[in-house]
């Protein structure tokens, strides 16, 4: 029997969606209490539970050959992974937001100050448009930044927009869609592409 495929799964709300998705397709990954690894009974897949932010590092270094992560996590890590499949849940949007009624910045009045947890994607977006930008990195609750006067703009993931609305903000520009993907370390993919395609087929299976 071949060694199981190894996969890093992100802790948190995405983990439940992933585990349910796999279970519906016959791959049962049950993490015992406080256990950070689990193997499905068929021996096809071995999973590690890791912090979302750390997931790219585990896959990049080949500790886990595969991983499930959003485009935002991958883009911020700076690593390159083989894109195996796109999952039908967890999608969201990266948006530029500001107090209601604010215009989209064009940089004519000098550098634009933006607060965000998504530094790389924000820098790249503004640079591609030739707009000078000053970025203030925050680790969470970025909606507070315009309210308290730290920065007039924020870049954040937006699902319903209700948190923005509650703080007097609105989306002024959609920057990109974010999808959740099954990813592979490129070298791992090259040596295990048959088994990984099998897993991808299972994950894409329609169970309705």
């Amino acid at each position: 029997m071949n060694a199981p495929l190894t996969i890093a799964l992100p802790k948190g709300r995405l983990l439940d969606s992933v585990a349910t998705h796999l279970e519906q397709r016959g791959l049962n990954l049950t993490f015992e209490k406080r256990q950070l690894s689990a193997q499905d009974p068929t021996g096809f897949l071995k999973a590690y539970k890791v912090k979302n932010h750390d997931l790219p590092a585990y896959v990049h270094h080949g500790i886990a050959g595969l991983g499930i992560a959003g485009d935002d996590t991958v883009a911020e890590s700076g690593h390159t992974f083989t894109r195996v499949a796109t999952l039908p849940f967890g999608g969201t949007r990266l948006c530029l937001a500001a107090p209601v009624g604010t215009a989209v910045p064009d940089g004519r009045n000098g550098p634009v100050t933006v607060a965000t947890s998504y530094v790389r994607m924000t820098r790249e977006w503004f640079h591609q448009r030739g707009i000078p930008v000053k970025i203030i990195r925050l680790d969470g609750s970025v909606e507070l930044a315009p309210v308290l006067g730290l920065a007039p703009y924020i870049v954040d993931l937006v699902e319903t927009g209700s948190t923005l609305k509650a703080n007097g903000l609105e989306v002024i520009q959609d920057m990109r869609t974010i999808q959740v993907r099954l990813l592979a370390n490129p070298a791992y993919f090259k040596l295990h592409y048959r088994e990984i395609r099998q897993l991808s087929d299972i994950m894409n299976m329609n169970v309705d």
Partner: protein
Amino acid sequence: MTPDNRQRLRTPQGTEAFFQEEAWRHRHLQRMTEDHFRSWGYLPVLTPVFDYFETYRPLLNALQEERSYRFPDRKGELLMLRSDITLFLAKQAGVAPPETEGPRRLYYSDSIIRHQEEEDISSDEFFQSGAELIGQPGQDGDLEVLMLLHDLLESMKLPTWRLHLGSRAILDAVFDGAVDSQKASALLEIRDEEGLCALFQDTGLPAPEHRSRLLLFLGTVDEFLSESSRLVEDCQPQNHRLAEAVSQLCNLATELLTCAPSERIRIDLSEHGGQPYYTGFTVRAYVDGANAAIASGGRYDNLLSSFGPGAPAAGFSMMMRKIEPLSTFAAEADDSVFGAQGKSFAERYANAQQQRLQGQRVTLDSSKDSP
């Protein structure tokens, strides 16, 4: 140790040093590699550690430029540390053209320095060994380089490994001069079928889905031989350049299987070689346990003309520090050292000399075991 001394032990991110047994295993593998190259008639070449940046700038893509270490010399000229031995070697080939007719076979074992992401374990300084065959065009040259690499990896006693063979000529034929090859290479790197389709659609090329499917082909040589005609037909039946490039790869792969076992070879058209100067076949080697390719190479028939008289060339380089921990050959390096016998220094010296003549490694330290 004082706090001041401890401060001196700080090391810049990206540097590494290795000592004693580890360094010995490194040398052991390097020596075997060099012996292998010599046994195929290759001669060593040493390239400068730094050179003028302007010399190489037109040959670097944006990422390579970003990763290179540059600094001004005392006269203000911009210099670049050696980031790719093939590039530096190509210039040396232009500086010192051959005195005799016929192909030149060169090898190197040296370090390169280029920036990697800060969390990358492998550091910014890599040890590369590789070989270049200059002046030998066509399939025989391709096969020589591929089998030189194949046999060397075989000797290293690695876990499961494979050579992934691609073709820059196929990529260029599919791009048809209409696609930004840097963008396409980035999409091929992550095997993004949707992104490739969109790129082909934007350029107005016909059959974008089939073009993407062809470039993402990954399978055995037999699978490629049986599917290649259909893949080309679906893609663009009248593209003779593409048909010719596919036919060349089929011939190369078929011939390769007469010398190498089929389980070692995969046809992988997403392999663009990683360097913008490739023109013909491309190859990367993957081994179980390494988080990236351990070797890469290909044919680059136009590179040398950037520095002087043009000549067809092909070669490969290997990331030795990625190979060492996986190589049973390296692990088998005998690092035993014995102590000399004798009461006085002169006795121990004489005894050590005698043992060394029998091939032993001997110190003058009497406390060590004797063989």
